C-alpha cells in the first residue's frame, strides 16, 4: 500500500503529462503483481466498492477523535478523507501495513457491516499518506489526473511497445492485468485481443499544411468529407455483443443506450457521435449535455437524441476490411448503412470537388445545413488502408478558420515546468452592461497557449506591472475602460454554460494576437458572443446540404 500511496501523493501534485508518465512507468517497474495492476485499475477508475461509503469513514473518525478537535480539524482542511487521514490517532500495537491487493480483495468481497472493522484496522496500520490513499480509494475519488489514455501510454512506455498495441488488447484484459504485464516484460506471448466486441485502434489524420501539402498531393487521389463537431466513436456489434468506444478505447456505451440500440448490423463502424434530430444534427453543446450524464434518463434522450454519422467500416460481419483501400471500405459502408435502415445511423456524405481550389471555396462557404456546423474538412486518400495511429500522407484534417474575439486580460496565473516563474495562464473577459448601466468586464475564458516565448515574456511583464491584487498563484490585472490589455482570442466553438458567469464557454481558446495597440474599451461585447451562439445553435433546418 505504501508504494501506491507515495505514487498517489506524487501524482496529485504533478501537473505535467510527461512527468506523470515517468512516475507511472517507474511504479510499474518497481512494484510487483498484482499490486501494480490494482494500482492501475484504481487510478483509471476501473474499481468500485459498493460496500464502502463516506458515512463509514465519518463514524470511524467520530468514534476515535474528540468531536470538537475533529470539527476544528475538518474546518481547517476542508476535505473529510484528508482530515481523517491526518488526524487519525493511531493505536499502538497495530497490525502490519496491508498490501494494496489485500485491501482491494477485502473490499471487493466485504459486506457492508464488515467494512468498518476492516477500515479501523487499516487506518491504525498505515501512515497519513497511506490512510489518505485508502480513503480516496474506498470512495472512488482519487482524482489525480490519470486518464485511461495516460495509463495506456504508461504501459506502452513501460513495455516499449506502441500505444496502439496496448489499446488493441486492453478490452480483453481485466484488473490486475497479470497477463498484460507478463507480455510487456517479455515473459509470455501477447494476449489475444479477441474478446467479443473489442476495440480496434483508430486511424487518425494529420493537420494539413496548406503551404506545402496541396502542391505535393493530387486532388484526384483524395476523397473529402465534412469534419463533424462531435465525438469520434467506434460502434461495434459482434457475436451478439454491442459496444461504443471513444477513440482511445474507453467504453462509453452506458451513456448512450439510444445509440447502442441502433446498432442493427454486424460489424465495426468508425463514425461521429452527434445529437441527431432526424438527419439534422445538433451543436456540440447539446452533445456535451449527454456526455456529462453517465446514465441518461428518457427526458434527456428525448431532448437530445444521439446517433452516429458513419464514415468508415473496419469489419463487415466477421470480415476484416482494414487492409482494403478506403474506396472499397466506403462502398461496403454505404451498403451496410442502407441495410441497417436506422434513423440513428446515417452516412457522412462525401463532398465532390474537381481540384483543391474548388474545395477551398467549399470549405470557406459551406452549404446550408449540417455542414455549417462542421469544423472543416477531412481528406482521405482513396487507396489508404485503415492503419492504426497517425500515418503520414493518408488522412488530413483541414479545419475551418477559427472564430475571433477581442477580449481584455483580467487574471493571470503562474505556470509550471518550463513556464516556471512566468504568468502564463490568462483569464480574459468581454464587456457587458451591469444592472446600473455601467460597462463591466465578465470573464469568458482562459487561454494558456498561442503565444511565442518572446510574447510570453512581454505578457508576464505586463502582468507584473499591472497587478492590482493577488490570491495565491493568481494575480488580478488592472482592466477597466481606461487601461487594460486586449488579447485577440481564437476559438473553435461556443456553447452555453451554466458554470460560467458569462453563460458561454469557448472551445480551444488561445491567444491569436496581442493587441498592444487597441484600447481596452474597444474590446468586444458579450452580445457579440451571444449572437454567435444563437447562430451556431440554430442552423438552418430542413435543408440537407449536398448530401
Amino acid at each position, binding site marked *: 500500500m505504501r508504494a501506491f500511496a507515495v505514487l498517489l501523493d506524487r501524482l496529485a501534485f504533478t501537473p505535467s503529462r510527461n512527468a506523470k508518465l515517468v512516475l507511472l512507468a517507474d511504479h510499474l517497474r518497481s512494484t510487483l503483481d498484482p499490486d501494480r495492476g490494482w494500482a492501475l485499475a484504481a487510478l483509471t477508475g476501473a474499481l468500485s466498492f459498493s460496500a464502502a461509503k463516506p458515512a463509514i469513514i465519518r463514524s470511524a473518525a467520530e468514534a476515535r477523535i474528540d468531536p470538537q478537535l475533529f470539527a476544528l480539524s475538518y474546518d481547517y482542511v476542508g476535505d473529510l478523507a484528508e482530515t481523517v487521514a*491526518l488526524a487519525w490517532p493511531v493505536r499502538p500495537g497495530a497490525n502490519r501495513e496491508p498490501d494494496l491487493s489485500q485491501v482491494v480483495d477485502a473490499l471487493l468481497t466485504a459486506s457492508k457491516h464488515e467494512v468498518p472493522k476492516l477500515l479501523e484496522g487499516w487506518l491504525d496500520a498505515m501512515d497519513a499518506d497511506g490512510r489518505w490513499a485508502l480513503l480516496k480509494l474506498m470512495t472512488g475519488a482519487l482524482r489525480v489526473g490519470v486518464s485511461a489514455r495516460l495509463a495506456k501510454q504508461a504501459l506502452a512506455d513501460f513495455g516499449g511497445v506502441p500505444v496502439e498495441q496496448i489499446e488493441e488488447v486492453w478490452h480483453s484484459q481485466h484488473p490486475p492485468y497479470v497477463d498484460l504485464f507478463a507480455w510487456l516484460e517479455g515473459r509470455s506471448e501477447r494476449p489475444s485481443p479477441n474478446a467479443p466486441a473489442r476495440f480496434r485502434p483508430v486511424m487518425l489524420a494529420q493537420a494539413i499544411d496548406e503551404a506545402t501539402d496541396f502542391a505535393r498531393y493530387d486532388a484526384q487521389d483524395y476523397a473529402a468529407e465534412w469534419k463533424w463537431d462531435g465525438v469520434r466513436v467506434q460502434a461495434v456489434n459482434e457475436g451478439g455483443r454491442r459496444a461504443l468506444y471513444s477513440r482511445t478505447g474507453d467504453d462509453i456505451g452506458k451513456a448512450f443506450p439510444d445509440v447502442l440500440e441502433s446498432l442493427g448490423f454486424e460489424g465495426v463502424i468508425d463514425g461521429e457521435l452527434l445529437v441527431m434530430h432526424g438527419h439534422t444534427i445538433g451543436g456540440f453543446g447539446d452533445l456535451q449535455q449527454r456526455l456529462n450524464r453517465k446514465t441518461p434518463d428518457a427526458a434527456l434522450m428525448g431532448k437530445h437524441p444521439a446517433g452516429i454519422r458513419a464514415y468508415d467500416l473496419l469489419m463487415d460481419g466477421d470480415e476484416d476490411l482494414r487492409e482494403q483501400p478506403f474506396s472499397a471500405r466506403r462502398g461496403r459502408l454505404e451498403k451496410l448503412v442502407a441495410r441497417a435502415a436506422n434513423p440513428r445511423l446515417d452516412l457522412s456524405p462525401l463532398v465532390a470537388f474537381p481540384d483543391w481550389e474548388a474545395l477551398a471555396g467549399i470549405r470557406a462557404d459551406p452549404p446550408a445545413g449540417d455542414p455549417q456546423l462542421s469544423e472543416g474538412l477531412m481528406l482521405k486518400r482513396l487507396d489508404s488502408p485503415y492503419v492504426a495511429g497517425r500515418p503520414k500522407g493518408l488522412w488530413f484534417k483541414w479545419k475551418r478558420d477559427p472564430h475571433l474575439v477581442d477580449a481584455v486580460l483580467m487574471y493571470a496565473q503562474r505556470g509550471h515546468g518550463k513556464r516556471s516563474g512566468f504568468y502564463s495562464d490568462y483569464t480574459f473577459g468581454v464587456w457587458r452592461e451591469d444592472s446600473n448601466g455601467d460597462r463591466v468586464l465578465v470573464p469568458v475564458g482562459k487561454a494558456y497557449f498561442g503565444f511565442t516565448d518572446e510574447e510570453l515574456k512581454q505578457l508576464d511583464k505586463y502582468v507584473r506591472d499591472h497587478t492590482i491584487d493577488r490570491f495565491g*498563484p493568481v494575480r488580478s490585472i488592472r482592466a477597466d475602460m481606461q487601461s487594460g490589455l486586449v488579447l485577440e482570442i481564437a476559438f473553435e466553438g461556443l456553447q452555453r454554460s451554466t458554470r460560467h458567469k458569462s453563460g458561454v464557454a469557448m472551445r480551444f481558446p488561445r491567444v491569436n494576437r496581442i493587441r498592444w495597440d487597441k484600447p481596452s474599451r474597444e474590446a468586444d461585447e458579450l452580445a457579440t458572443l451571444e449572437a454567435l451562439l444563437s447562430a451556431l445553435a440554430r442552423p438552418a433546418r430542413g435543408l440537407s446540404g449536398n448530401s
Partner: protein
Amino acid sequence: MKLKPQALLCPRPAGLYCPPGDFYIDPTRPVDRAVITHGHADHARAGHGVVAATPETLAIMAVRYGEDFAGRVEPLRYGETIERGGVDVTLVPAGHILGSAQAVLRWKGMTIVVSGDYKRRADPTCAPFEPIACDVFVTEATFGLPVFRHPPDSDEIAKLIKSLEQFPQRTHIVGAYALGKAQRIIRLLRQAGHDQVIYTHGAMARLDELYTGFGVDLGPLAPATVEKKAAFEGAVVIAPPSALEGTWVRRFADPVPCFASGWMRVKARARQRHVELPLIISDHADWDELTNTISEVRPEELWVTHGAEEALLRWSALNDIPAKALAIVGYEDEDDD
C-alpha cells in the same frame, strides 16, 4: 498565600514582561532589556538596550542586523544562569534552530518556562530540546491542530532523493526558510548520502557560513548564479520560499518546485503554492510533540503565545490542565514564508 505567576511574567504590548527582573522576552518592539530565545526575525529584533541570548543567537543577530544591533550584549551559554532583580534566568536548548533556547525564570520557588519556538525531533544542526519541570509552561502552537503530524525527516528527504533519480534533467528547487530550515535540509541531504554541490540563493550564503563556523558541516556549496546554468541540471538548489514565486526561478530549465514546511501536510496549502514536491519538514513542534511536551513538563498552568491555540486549549481542558491564550501580536510564522 500562593504567589500569582503574573507577578513574575505578564503580557504587555511589547511582549512578555518580567516585572521583578525588569526585562522582556522576545519583545516585538525596542526595549531597554531583552532576553532573546532565538534568531528568527519576529523574536529577535534590532534596537534593544541590553540583549541576553546564546552566543549563537547573538552571532545570528549580528549577521542579520550588523554588529551594532544592540547597546550591549550578554552572551549566555546553555545552562548558565544570570540573576536579574532576584530572578534567576537560565537558557536551555529548545531544538528549534542553531542557538535556540527556552528561557527558564526562577523566582521565590516558582518556575516559568518560555519555550520560544521549539521542536522535539532530532535536528543535526542544533542541540535537542530539554524538558524542564515548571509551574507555568509558555508554549507556541504554530501546528496546534491534530492534523499536523510531521512524518520522519528521513522519509521526506528520501522523497527528494528519489525524485532526483526519477527526473535527472530537472533542477529541484527547495523553498526553505533562510535561517535554520535551509541549513537543516542541507545537513539532512548530506546525512542521506547526497554529496554533490548544493546551490544556494544569495540571501542565505552568510547564514550558511555562520552555521559552518559553529561546526555544522554543510558539504560543498555554491551560489546559484546565472552563469552556472548547465550545472543546475539534476542539482538541488535551496532558496527562500518567496524566490520560488519570483522571476528568479527562470534561470532553471523545467524546475521541480519543492517546499519544506510543516504546512505542506495539508494538500490545499501545497496546491495553493504551486508546489510539485511538498516536503513536510518543520522546525516547529507538531501536534504530538506539543501535547507530549506539555504532558512531560506537567505545568500547573499552560500559556499559549501564538498559533492555533483553540485546539490546544481544548486538548488541555480534556486533560485537566488550566490553559489560556496570550494571543501575542507580532510573532509570525517563518514556516510559511
